[in-house]
């Protein structure tokens, strides 16, 4: 209990520092926010363009697809703010031989790297995602309170998948020193989570639901809100949590390996 309290205090300190840093580069911060907000529109824009040309995904209205994509965006934004920074922190530390500076602190290395890279830059991204989400909701039948709760639980599980991915990426950067393209590898796989599952073949769906569960980030929460997915979706919670656990174990293992072989 005392430990949790201390970690919360550290986290609060890190958030304070993040705000202080953002205010130093105010202009840059606002610009980043706006660019992220705009960049965020790309996928929904393509969806809208496709539907405007008279085509679309069978069984899905444009607002239903936008719902998936806006949930995906909000999840990305929250991940960017809270834990995605661990990738860059790790990559930078390994390349510069700086990880010692984190290792000499008497706290969990994974925790401190995540906390120290807390960033408010992705606020713009979240606002953009939330706006599209709201617009989609207005144009869709209102879900009941129980559906909201269910979708919320799945959304949090989706965040767990996001964190798992961030940790896998960071773990990869130990071996693949200084490769700034690592995120692209994982980002490309995330692409499967931005669209309705039924456009992909069964094998792909099994992979994106059970093996590399990116479908939990956007698709499943949206499907629950739309009443499209039965109770089956709760089984996919398990592989998501296992995925996160695997990410944590992998990251810790790589830190230990780094301490063992580093020069």
């Amino acid at each position, binding site marked *: 209990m005392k430990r949790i309290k201390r970690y919360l205090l550290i986290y609060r300190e890190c958030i304070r520092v993040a705000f202080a840093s953002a205010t130093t580069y105010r202009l840059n911060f606002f610009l980043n926010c706006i660019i992220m907000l705009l*960049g965020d529109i790309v996928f929904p824009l393509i969806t809208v363009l496709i539907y405007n040309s008279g085509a679309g995904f069978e069984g899905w209205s444009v607002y239903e697809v936008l719902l998936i994509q806006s949930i995906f965006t909000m999840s990305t934004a929250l991940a960017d703010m809270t834990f995605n920074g661990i990738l860059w922190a790790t990559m930078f530390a390994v390349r510069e031989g700086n990880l010692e500076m984190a290792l000499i602190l008497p706290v969990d290395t994974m925790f401190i790297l995540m906390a120290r890279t807390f960033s408010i830059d992705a606020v713009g991204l979240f606002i953009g995602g939330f706006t599209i989400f709201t617009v989609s909701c207005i144009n869709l039948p209102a879900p009941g309170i129980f559906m909201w709760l269910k979708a919320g639980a799945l959304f949090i599980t989706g965040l767990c998948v996001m964190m798992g991915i961030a940790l896998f990426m960071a773990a990869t950067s130990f071996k693949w020193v200084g490769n700034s393209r690592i995120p692209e590898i994982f980002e490309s796989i995330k*692409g499967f989570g931005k669209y309705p599952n039924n456009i992909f073949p069964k094998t792909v769906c099994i992979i994106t639901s059970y093996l590399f569960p990116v479908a939990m980030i956007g698709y499943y929460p949206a499907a629950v809100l739309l009443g499209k997915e039965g109770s089956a979706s709760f089984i996919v919670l398990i592989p998501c949590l296992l995925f996160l656990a695997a990410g944590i174990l992998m990251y810790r293992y790589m830190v230990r390996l780094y301490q063992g072989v580093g020069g």
Partner: protein
Amino acid sequence: MKYIIHQLRIMKEVALVTYKEWSAYRTHSMVSIFVGPVYFIVQYFIWTAVYGGREQLNGMDLTQVIAYFGASTLIGYLTMDFADWNLQMLIHTGRFLTFALRPIHHRFFAFSQKLGHRFLGLIFEFIPCYFIFTLLFGIDITPKHVGWTLLSILLAFLMTFYIHYILGMTAFWFVQSSGIRRVFDLLSGIFSGVFIPLVFFPEGLQKALFFLPFPYMTYVPVMVYTGNFVLAGITMPIPVIVGLQAIAVAVVMLISEIIYRASMRRFNGVGA
């Protein structure tokens, strides 16, 4: 004549050094061997679902759209550019001065660098992905007119270079030029046709795009690659659109030269 041979020798040397320098990071390039095909697979399923039995959308059929995304991925490997990043870095660190002190035009140097760097792209990105697309996925992406395609890709290569060089030069004028470059990257992503064929945009916008640099970087070479060019309802023979692309490149080269001269006046004046 002697001058040209001398310049070509410099170009070869710079390209070779860049190639060697970056081949230490060849695994960076090889990430594309995974990422390219995965993005392609996603696009394949999206568009197969979108067409869902329809013959044509906006004048393109499904096989052409699939070939479009394949070709746009491949061409991207040959034309990709970061001259803007390099140049702004040289300016901000003050190392641009070392070029002002040497008997070489920095733009020529940067161009040679890009040649070396993209040669790496050809070997570690283009060729492997080409074989994955054709042999593994069985997609037909042989260029319809090889000569015109090569010419169009070369023009796109020049276009991306000169545009990015202009973007890099903004660092002579602004301390924070990263914002401008990011906004441009975003716009070029959307309007060059990387994410979606430009025929899907509203027609008025499509017309306007003829007068913007974006389509000449990706959309035009990709359409030439796939064999027929349409934009804003206008179908053009391949030689005509490639000619138009050449004019666009010439205009951008001219603008780049004007901005370069103005930048040099500023650089020598205030020592930025």
